[in-house]
């Protein structure tokens, strides 16, 4: 009987020693990194493809109206001011070497939210909230020229193309991305890349210089945004975050306006005033 016994054996041989939590965190980090790289590649690829769409096609899709979904009321503002914006847009566009066939359409949006944006199909919108707060035509021109530069670079359609590529693949992977898509579309379309903004700034300053002979008066735009920012308790209004403020951009504008003599080249006042309360 001495052959039959149950000696005490180590009882932990059947379980891996690795801490499941560390392993989980490592794998999750790796997966997140992978998703980020693939997502970035998809977004970039989608936006590059979208840039290949001819501008005429883009304009035919969108039509005469401001694209819906911009989060702003469709009610048009003062028609005279819109005509003024359109004339200014055309004059600035003439200085910006737009490709043949690229037409621009200005809109004056009746809302107190201070914002300006370029949308699909060459539509450029300035809101009453922003217009009222701008001290000079030079400042307004900087804003418009910046948006024209976005249209010229095809940034609006590139943003949509990138998000579309991302959402398409996400819906293929998850089967049904309808829950995710809305949330992600908001995140993705939040703004253009820093590089696109910088390029647009550079082009806008250039256009300003050609049109007025100097690049002064532009920093007023940033001062306006800064005032709004403090008025909103330090937090920028959601729509403003599409044009992030940073010291770098202000510094570049000041540098561009360095040789400007305010006495010899006075700022042009806005031709029309929005008198609505």
């Amino acid at each position, binding site marked *: *009987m001495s*052959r*039959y*016994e*149950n000696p*005490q054996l180590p*009882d932990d041989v*059947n*379980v*891996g020693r*690795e801490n*499941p*939590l560390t*392993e*989980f965190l490592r*794998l*999750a980090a*790796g*997966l997140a990194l992978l998703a980020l790289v693939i997502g970035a590649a998809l977004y970039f690829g989608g936006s590059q493809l979208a840039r290949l769409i001819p501008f005429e096609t883009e304009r035919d899709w969108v039509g005469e109206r401001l694209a819906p979904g911009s989060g702003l009321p469709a009610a048009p503002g003062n028609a005279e001011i819109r005509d003024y914006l359109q004339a200014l847009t055309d004059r600035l566009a003439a200085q910006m070497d737009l490709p043949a066939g690229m037409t621009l359409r200005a809109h004056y949006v009746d809302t107190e939210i201070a914002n300006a944006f370029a949308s699909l199909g060459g539509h450029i919108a300035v809101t009453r909230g922003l217009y009222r707060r701008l001290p000079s035509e030079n400042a307004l021109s900087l804003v418009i020229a910046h948006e024209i530069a976005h249209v010229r670079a095809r940034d609006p359609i590139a943003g949509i193309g990138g998000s579309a590529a991302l959402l398409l693949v996400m819906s293929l992977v998850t089967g049904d991305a309808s*829950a*995710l898509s*809305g*949330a*992600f579309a908001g995140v993705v379309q939040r703004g253009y890349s820093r590089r696109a903004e910088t390029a647009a700034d550079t082009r806008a300053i250039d256009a300003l210089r050609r049109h007025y002979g100097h690049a002064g008066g532009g920093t007023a735009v940033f001062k306006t945004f800064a005032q709004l920012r403090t008025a909103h308790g330090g937090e920028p209004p959601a729509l403003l975050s599409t044009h992030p403020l940073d010291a770098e951009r202000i510094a570049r504008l000041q540098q561009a306006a360095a040789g400007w003599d305010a006495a010899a080249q006075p700022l042009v006042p806005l031709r029309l005033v929005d008198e609505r309360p």
Partner: protein
Amino acid sequence: MELLIQIGFFLALLVVGLVAGTLNERRHYRRLREDEAALRGILVFNERRPPDDLPLRTGQLVVGSVVIGEDYFKRIAASLKSLFGGRLVVYESLMDRGRREAIVRMKREAEHLGATMVFNVRFETSSLAEDGTGRQAAFSAEFIAYGTALVPPAAA
């Protein structure tokens, strides 16, 4: 915002699963060690026949069974690991606990009968995860250990 709430829920469940699951597992292992020490007197073997020179005893079937379920953390950690492959450590401990608990329960039944040995011990494991709808329900597994307890005539 909606996405943030969803992510928040997910993370909360993950933490609950991790904390509760880890505490549970630790407590189970502690009890297992105590039970195993207490039942060391009952010998178990997987040989089909008792040795011929063993004094005559009656044989009786003894069964120990247990069902163990996963926690939310194990579930997510395992599905993440399944993307890359390799050992599923989170399930290794679950299966280990199940097998040992089944043996403990079987031994306890043998002890009840007054037996000191169990021969021909076998294991069965079955997953209760499939609910037939194709959707992955919470994973749980049943572990059965059974064998022939040899009961001395006096005790039987």
